[in-house]
């Protein structure tokens, strides 16, 4: 068995449609349970009233990231089969800023507006109508917007590749930063009850995540010649020269075994897919 399953030909597209529908169903259900069908709850983060968005998002990212890094680290998951969104740095910074403004104005982001509309919210329906109009406007103004749309194309680049750092270490740092953010937003003056030696679900979660992060960093460091996330077995010679001036050179702080895997695999197929899969 090789993972991911679908790209390895384990089942056809029809089964894939059914599965993605089911995963979407779960996603929508869980967003609703998190309270993300509510524009007020979603935007409360921007008024320092409720940190649910930060907590849900970073917990989800950390859990999925740890899963990917462990599965790729032990060799069960082939990251070459995974569509990693390509980096177009300028477009993504500009698009992110505009999307953040649209988020706090409208009260939703695209996925949560579907949940809001399904919960009966009229504002979510208006937001969805806006999404359609905005997409149309982008198409109509594509001639003008195209320079921004293509600003900073770098291909598929991961944070570890960009830093020239070990993926396990980067993952571990992200876990610790997320935990620090949770702690900072949970902090209440004098609120450190119950006693330190009482095990609560949150403390158990912290202990599990810290252990996993530590093991990850150590595990990747020990096999630092092994594939980093997203770094496939693309031979260095097969790499087109014109990927990007920002392409990291393979100097790594993780030791002398800095490897050809840290250079960028370039797959046109993946670019195309990633640009349409969001």
């Amino acid at each position, binding site marked *: 068995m090789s993972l991911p399953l679908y790209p390895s030909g384990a089942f056809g597209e029809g089964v894939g449609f059914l599965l993605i529908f089911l995963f979407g169903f779960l996603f929508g259900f869980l967003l609703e349970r998190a309270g993300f069908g509510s524009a007020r709850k979603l935007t409360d983060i921007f*008024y320092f009233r409720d940190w649910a968005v930060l907590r849900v998002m970073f917990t989800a*990212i950390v859990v999925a*990231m740890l899963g990917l890094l462990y599965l790729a680290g032990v060799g069960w998951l082939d990251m070459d089969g995974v569509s990693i969104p390509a980096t177009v740095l300028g477009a993504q910074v500009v698009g992110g800023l505009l999307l953040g403004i649209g988020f706090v104005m409208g009260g939703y982001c695209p996925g949560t507006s579907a949940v809001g509309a399904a919960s009966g919210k009229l504002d979510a329906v208006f937001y969805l109508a806006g999404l359609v109009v905005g997409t149309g406007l982008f198409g109509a103004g594509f001639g003008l917007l195209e320079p921004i749309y293509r600003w900073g194309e770098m291909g598929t680049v991961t944070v570890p590749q960009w830093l020239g750092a070990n993926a396990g270490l980067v993952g571990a740092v992200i876990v610790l930063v997320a935990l620090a953010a949770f702690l900072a937003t949970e902090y209440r003056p004098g609120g450190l009850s119950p006693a330190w030696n009482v095990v609560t679900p949150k403390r158990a979660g912290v202990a599990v995540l810290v252990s996993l992060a530590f093991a990850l960093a150590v595990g990747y460091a020990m096999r630092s010649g092994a594939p980093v996330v997203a770094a496939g077995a693309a031979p260095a010679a097969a790499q087109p020269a014109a990927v990007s001036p920002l392409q990291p050179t393979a100097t790594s702080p993780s030791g002398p075994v800095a490897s050809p895997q840290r250079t960028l695999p370039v797959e046109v197929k993946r670019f195309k897919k990633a640009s349409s899969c969001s």
Partner: protein
Amino acid sequence: MRSESGTQYWSPYAAGAAIGLTLLATIVILGSGLGASGAIARTVAAAFHAIAPEAAESHAYFKTYFAEGRSPLQDWMVYQLGGVFLGGLVGALTAGRWRPGLEKGPNAARAHRLLLAFAGGTLTGLAARLARGCTSGQALTGGAMLSLGSWAFMFSVFAGGYLAAWFVRRQWS
């Protein structure tokens, strides 16, 4: 956690962990992650095509959605957004939270809130095409895959939100 009606919301950490496992399963089984705005773009492309097929197929941006030689709606992202909608509906119904209406501050006018919702959606629709994804496809999925651009996108979203929050605060007053 407060909930305006119905049962309580889940702990954000429990909900987040469950979403993370769902995302992980999606990637490990299907090879790509979750997303939302792609389905909207495909719907727009399909509508464009229904009105003016040739213009749609030769349009500088939308032509990519016809490259496979079939309807842009025959795509995973479209099925997935259908699932998100149904999952949200079942979630709201089973929690006793399904209620027609809109959310706004007690003193804000309905038209004020609806206008901002529409304008915010419009800006987001444009921004998501520019960034090649939204909070689901870029921040969540790309974030978990450690894509550099996805992390830059995520921080930019928060920056944009905090920058603009003050100007649109009255809809919640």
